């Protein structure tokens, strides 16, 4: 199982803060494709991804127990 965190508009569209998914072995790109179909999430191309609280690229392969977070363009400050 991996844990997926949603923030900002992604949280509103998915209706979820966090969910557990069977996705070990998939790449981030594959996970994104799966989720964008599941929740009709538009604009995933401008969304960064963090794995275990560090930015990760699309080819990163997910491991059992990973925490994945989708990071829309930030607007702190």
């Amino acid at each position, binding site marked *: 199982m991996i844990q997926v965190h949603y923030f900002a508009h992604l949280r509103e569209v998915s209706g979820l803060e966090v969910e557990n998914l069977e996705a070990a072995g998939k790449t981030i790109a594959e996970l994104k494709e799966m989720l964008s179909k599941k929740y009709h999430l538009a604009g995933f191309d*401008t969304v960064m991804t963090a794995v275990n609280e560090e930015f990760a690229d699309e080819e990163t392969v997910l491991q059992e127990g990973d925490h994945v977070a989708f*990071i829309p363009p930030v*607007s*702190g400050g």
Partner: protein
Amino acid sequence: MNFQITKDPIDMNEMMDKVTSRNAGAVTLFVGTVRELTKNKKTLYLIYEAYEAMAVKKLAQIGDEIQLKWPETKVAITHRVGKLEITDVAVVIAVSTPHRNDAYEANRYAIERIKEIVPIWKKEHWEDGQEWVGNQLETVAYPSGKPEESDL
């Protein structure tokens, strides 16, 4: 606790105390506040949300970057989350350095980096609607799915 996300109002004297040093001749505090008008649109209030665990790490990383670029610096950053009204303080960056020019430069570096790499989001509420604001640097496209190497 020099790098924090908080739901509570931020105290300026506490921020100052975090970076006070016998070696420092200058402290700069940058305070980001909620402004009423942006491009003639009237904000009613804002909601800030953070991926807290990662945001704290990224704030600490900015502190490390500053200490590499400007030795003998002390840095503290606190960002508030939740509902913020007009004039409320969203973020405070405190930097102390032996000499004053560095205190300004290092502080400015911190706010630019916050807007690049710290997972915090702002939702603007106006009279006629609401919206999650994309990044204020308007570099919203990350073709590789993450910031460029130099941004990490």
